């Protein structure tokens, strides 16, 4: 798992620019699935046919990560940017970013501002070390997107990296594809695009696939750090079964299926109530005439920073739980 998560979390893939992630995942899973294709939005869809007349199950993890899109290059070669997804001021000041072509920049801000509270993203810029516009334009064009330049670490049973949201989910699905035994169900593994911009890839792929049931795999916040907002999810206490977030109320039968499967096989789990945010199931469960949907969440500290932190045990138990769920004959 560590090699897989290190590999996937280090690939450049901001929203709308998921091609490299898609190629890497395709290489990993191609020989393990019956069909694999990319749709018009860029979603990577892999199918593992069932052995019986089970359900059509959609599994979704998003490939995209948050990013910074260049909107302007000034005469001195500094880049102004807009956020793609939830880029915050606090997590960005003096952080390094990297573009697809390897160009590295530092995020600075207008220091004449009196207070940190006055800093907004439009008062920040990316410094790529260019001395003027021409030099900058040789490296970067308007519309190019940078991501946090992040170092992967594995320390004390934790994985720390820049795009655990949601390459951890992608890795969990890849591992599931490689490890799962026979299943009566037709499994549609969808690695989605543009989740961070509004669950966009999940919307079109769910429409195309018409699943009977769906489970998204994504990271969630935790409530286990000093003086943080209260939330009953802790790193290392097992994968979380979502009750609700701002995008979806997990379908009771899917939730029940996930909980009873975990209990039956003695897999640690926790229940998750996220008071904000959303994930692909938010779009999937409203597709066509409705899709019973749940979410398997990976607890993650420092979400949307360059040091998103997850627990190795949560990942392993997440794979175990998902495999057990998918191998069942499901009635819903």
């Amino acid at each position, binding site marked *: 798992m560590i090699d897989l998560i290190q590999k996937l979390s280090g690939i450049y893939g901001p929203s709308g620019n998921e091609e490299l992630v898609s190629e890497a995942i395709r290489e990993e899973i191609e020989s393990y699935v019956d069909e694999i294709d990319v749709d*018009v939005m860029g979603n990577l869809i892999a199918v593992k046919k069932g052995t019986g007349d089970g359900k059509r199950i959609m599994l979704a993890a998003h490939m995209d990560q948050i990013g910074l899109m260049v909107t302007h290059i000034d005469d001195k070669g500094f880049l102004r940017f*807009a956020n793609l997804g939830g880029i915050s001021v606090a997590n960005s000041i003096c952080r390094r970013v990297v573009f697809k072509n390897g160009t590295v920049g530092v995020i600075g801000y207008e220091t004449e501002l009196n207070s940190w509270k006055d800093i907004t993203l*439009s008062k920040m810029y990316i410094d790529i070390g260019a001395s003027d516009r021409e030099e900058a334009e040789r490296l970067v064009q*308007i519309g190019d997107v940078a991501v946090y330049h992040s170092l992967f670490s594995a320390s004390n049973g934790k994985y720390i990296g820049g795009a655990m949201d949601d390459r951890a989910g992608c890795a969990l699905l890849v591992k599931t594809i490689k490890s799962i035994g026979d299943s009566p169900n037709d499994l549609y593994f969808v690695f989605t695009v543009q989740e961070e*911009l509004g669950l*966009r890839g999940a919307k*079109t792929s769910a429409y195309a696939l018409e699943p009977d049931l769906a489970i998204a795999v994504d990271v969630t916040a935790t409530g286990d750090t000093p003086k943080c907002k209260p939330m009953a999810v802790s790193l290392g206490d097992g994968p979380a079964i979502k009750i609700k977030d701002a995008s979806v109320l997990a379908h009771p039968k899917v939730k029940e299926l996930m909980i009873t499967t975990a209990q039956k096989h003695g897999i640690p789990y926790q229940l998750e109530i996220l008071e904000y945010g959303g994930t692909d199931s938010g779009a999937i469960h409203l597709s066509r005439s409705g899709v019973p949907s749940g979410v398997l969440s990976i607890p993650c500290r420092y979400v949307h920073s360059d040091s998103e932190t997850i627990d190795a045990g949560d990942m392993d138990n997440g794979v175990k739980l998902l495999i057990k769920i998918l191998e069942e004959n499901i009635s819903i």
Partner: protein
Amino acid sequence: MSDLLRRLTSARGVSGDEGDIRKVIIDEITPLVDEVHIDRMGNVIGYKKGTNPKRKVMLCAHMDEVGFIITRIEDNGMLKFATVGSIDSRILPSKRVKIGDKGVPGVMGIKAIHLQEPSERKNAVKAKHMYIDIGARSKEEAEKLVSLGDYAVFDSDLVYFGDGRVKSKALDDRVGCFTLIESLKGNYPFDLYACFTVQEEVGLRGAKVAAYHIQPDIGLVVEGTTCSDVPKVEPHRHTTRMGDGPAISIADLASYSNKRMVSFLIECAKNAGIPYQIKEGITGGNDAGEIQRSRAGAMTAVISVPCRYIHSPSSVMDLKDLDNTVRLVKEFLEGCESL
């Protein structure tokens, strides 16, 4: 160019009340298409059968404009109103409007400066504190002229000024409607659906059902977009620059443009010597959001004509930008089947 642009911009078409502009568009496109379809939302879809149709191309521009709706008639004959679509209420005082199908003239009023407290002078007046004065002396007199729910539209003529520039209401998005009508004069191998949508300004509503109905392979949205190349705005917040040509969007809040379409648009512009600019910034959103994510998805892109003072009675545009937008869309249509 001038006559059509004047007809399009002077027609009334506040979101939900697109009847007047719809009629103008139907008259214009009927001789150019094989079929005119008006759907249940009120979208106008001009269908032009291809000579060798393999794919469906949807061109899209919204007919509706921002405006007002009458919410109450006061005892003294004054009309209270709500805005339809996003309008900066600071621009409203003393603006002229026309209300309802009869075009009843009115003016937006606020308390005279002499009567305002010093604190009131410092704060922008909110729309909910303004009213429309139609010259009525009483509720009864006003009710003979207008009804609750009547729409009001900016009363503002198209004016040519400067060297090839115009000011008008509703350039957003009658410039798109203009471009679509011009595009329908060509013949193409694919099935072309020119959609003039309703209710974009209140949430991309018309495009949602139009795209579901058409199921296009390729969607190209033609818009009027913000242009803030004016004093005191820092260059990195201009978004677009007037006169620099049609603006191609990489992304906005509603959609991330298909990369192959964007590359192809740039290639078209370069090959044909058409000036273009890449839109700077990702603010705003348009019908492409709904088209791209209709059913199982479609390729989409957005081209916009830069318009200063958008969503006001006096938007300003450079006619060269419109002309070049028409040229770029035509170039795109000539070759887009290879995408």
